[in-house]
Each structure stands twice: as C-alpha cells, then as structure tokens.
C-alpha cells in the first residue's frame, strides 16, 4: 500500500466527492494557487474517470438547450457591456483632454460622451463604425455611424430633439487637424447632416478622431469654435476585433 500525503488525500477525497461544503470551497480556492494540489487533483480525476462509464446516459428535456442558449446570450450581453464600460472609461480620459484643448469651459455644461458597442454580430463589417453621444450617462442623445470605406456618415438623433433658435453642430478633432476642433457641419432642422461631410478626411484619421456635437446659436457657431455645451463621441468598430467572450 502506497503512502499518501495529506494533500494527496485531500485531492482524492475532493475528486471522490466526499468532502463537505466548506472543505470543497477551500479546495476550489486553493487549487487556483497551489500547482501541486492541482496536479494531484488531475491525477485523481484521471484515475477515477473510468467509473463514469457506469453512468447511464439520460436525455434532458427538449427545451434545455434553448434555456442554456438564452443564458449564454445574457452572459455575452454582459460581456459586451463590460467591454463598452472599459471603453467609456478610456473615452472619458480622452474627453478630458479634448475638453481642455477645445476650451469648452463649463464642466457642468460639458456632457460626457459615452460609447456603446453593439452586441457582437456573426458577420462583422470592418468598415462600419459607430459613436454614441450620450448625455449624463443617461439615454444616448445621438448616434453617429460612419462607413469608413465610403466615408459616409449618418447622424441619428436618439433622445435629442430639435430646439427652437438653436442648432446642433458636429465637430471633429484630431491631432493632425490642429489643436482646435474643426466643424464638420451644422445639423439640419430634422437633425440630419450631409452624408458626405467627412469626404475630406482619411479613414485612418477618422478612426483616431474624437467627435463632438455642441449646441450653438441657430445656423451654427459664430466663432468657428464650439461655444455651447458639447457632447462627444469616438468611433468604434461595430464589431470589436478579437474574442469578446468572458
């Protein structure tokens, strides 16, 4: 009879299943850090695995897969949200910079832009980018979608409403364009904008750029710079590269 260390016995009983709840939780924690314990557990799993052949297969209910798939949908949605939260954090840092440089003053008036990424799609369009202009972390005010290949842009008001005697103006800011934002154009009364307004910018520049939408006197900023409260967005691909799963 071979002699077993306490750790080996712990691993053995863990795999056998006879440990009580607190002992099992302890092993679950310990095996994360203790390589030796992990190895011992794996060895016992391999030793006892053939016992599993004795288990009769029993088909689960027909609806179980659909329930599991819904759970996975929820898990993926949370992962995408977490992903976009990370981006919002990065975006906020970028905005602080933008704000300082743009000279748009009042912190109270200046509204944080947030960025949401659509749920991962099975057929990513690598040329489609979107920015969400979000007010006070509430509902998005505007969404901006840009097709980089065709350099076509589309502004979609979400909660933003046309205002009497005021215009919304879209700005672009990028290092190579100088220290101040450049006007892309003033939104029409129905809050749309000329689809070709970004034609002069390269896709690479557009990917790096920060966008802002400010509230201006009717017809647009009289100074050529944002004068009113602005909200900002930054383009992200509609499908992030890489693995989005947890």
């Amino acid at each position: 009879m071979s002699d077993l260390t306490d750790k080996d016995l712990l691993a053995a009983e863990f795999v056998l299943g006879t440990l009580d709840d607190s002992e099992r939780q302890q092993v679950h924690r310990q095996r994360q850090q203790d390589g030796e314990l992990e190895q011992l557990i794996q060895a016992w799993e391999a030793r006892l695995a053939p016992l599993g052949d004795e288990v009769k297969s029993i088909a689960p209910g027909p609806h179980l897969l659909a329930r599991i798939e819904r759970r996975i949908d929820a898990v993926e949605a949370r992962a995408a949200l977490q992903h976009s939260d990370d981006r919002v954090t990065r975006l906020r840092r970028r905005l602080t910079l933008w704000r300082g440089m743009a000279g748009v003053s009042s912190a109270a008036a200046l509204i944080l832009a947030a960025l949401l990424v659509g749920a991962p799609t099975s057929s990513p369009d690598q040329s489609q980018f979107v920015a969400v202009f979000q007010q006070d972390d509430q509902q998005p005010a505007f969404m901006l979608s840009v097709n980089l290949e065709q350099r076509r842009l589309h502004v979609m008001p979400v909660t933003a409403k046309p205002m009497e005697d005021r215009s919304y103006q879209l700005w672009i800011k990028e290092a190579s364009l100088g220290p101040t934002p450049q006007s892309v154009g003033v939104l029409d009364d129905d809050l749309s904008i000329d689809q070709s307004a970004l034609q002069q910018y390269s896709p690479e520049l557009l990917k790096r750029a920060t966008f802002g939408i400010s509230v201006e006197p009717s017809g647009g900023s009289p100074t050529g710079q944002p004068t009113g409260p602005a909200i900002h967005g930054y383009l992200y691909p509609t499908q992030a590269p890489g693995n989005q799963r947890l």
Partner: protein
Amino acid sequence: MTHVQRLESDTSAPSDAQSPQDRLVMLLARVEKGDREAFAELYQATSAKLFGTVLRILKDTTWADDVIQDVYVTIWQKADRFDRQRGSVIGWMATIARNAAIDDLRRAPRHQSEDDSHLEHAAATQASAFEQRDQDESSDRLSQCLEELEETRSQMVRLAYLDGWSRADLASHFGQPVNTVKTWLHRALKQLKGCLST
C-alpha cells in the same frame, strides 16, 4: 449503450474517418472561438451523458436541469481551458458536471429527498451496472483494483463517486461513525492508487 458511451470506448478503433473523439475536440475548438452552432452540436452529442451524471447525484430532474444549465454556460466560457493532453473532451465536461452537482448537493443537501430509499436503490444496482462496463483498458484496470478492495470499501467509493454520497450518507448506510468511514475511505484510496500504479 448510448452514443456518448460508444464515443468513449472508441479510442482504439482505427479509422480513416474522423473519430467521434476528434469530432468533439473539433467542436470544442469551434466553441472556443464563439461558434454557437458548434456549441449546439456539442450539446447534442454530450448532454445525455452529462445529464445522466448529474441526475444520478441529485435525483431530481428540476435540480439537474438547473445544474446542467450552469455546466454548459461554464463550458461555453471555459472552452479554452480544455487541455487535450489531459484527457477526453467528454471526460473534461463530465468532471465539470460532477463538480457542479456535488458542490450544489453539499451546499444545499435539503434538496435531496430525506427518504433513504433512493440510497438503497442505488446501492442495490451497483453490482449489475458494474458488470456492464465498457471493455476499455483503463476501465478494466480500475475495475480490477476496485475488486481487490474489501467489498464495503469498493461500494463506498462507487456510491461516493457516482451517487454523490457524503461521508455522513455512507456512515448512516453502513452503520458506522463518520470518522470510521473517513478512515476506510482513505485506506481505500491509498490502496487504489497503489494498485493502479503497478
């Protein structure tokens, strides 16, 4: 004999076609990349085995349903952790399922029927089930080593592993103090390890 069990015993069959084991490896690799279709296929190929494993431990289909859902979500999330060197896909998945079922059972034993009759039933079916085992080499080896154990101890090992019995369940069934059961289990495990290493 089920589809999944055939998969497991198919290791030695030489074939030009993709073996069922290889198919599971391929499916899991696709699942790792987020392929939902592959996930559904993997589920179809493995869920009866996993459900059987979990249900035998929990003895309650609703409870087993819940645990199996967690198990497959875990498999979806941790597909990248599978290491082919360590064993089969179905073995890896069954381990996740067993651990989830036993964790749940230990956490909330009240779920399980207090009536002991299922325990008696499980114990009574052991021998016959054991005789129908696959003719797999490692299976045979473990089977021989279990036979070398004192009968009570080999029963304890099987009841613990397959039916999720705790030390207390075993103690009450075999009419022994829990500490005695623990000692017996330790001796049985030592003996098994020694036997399997020869």
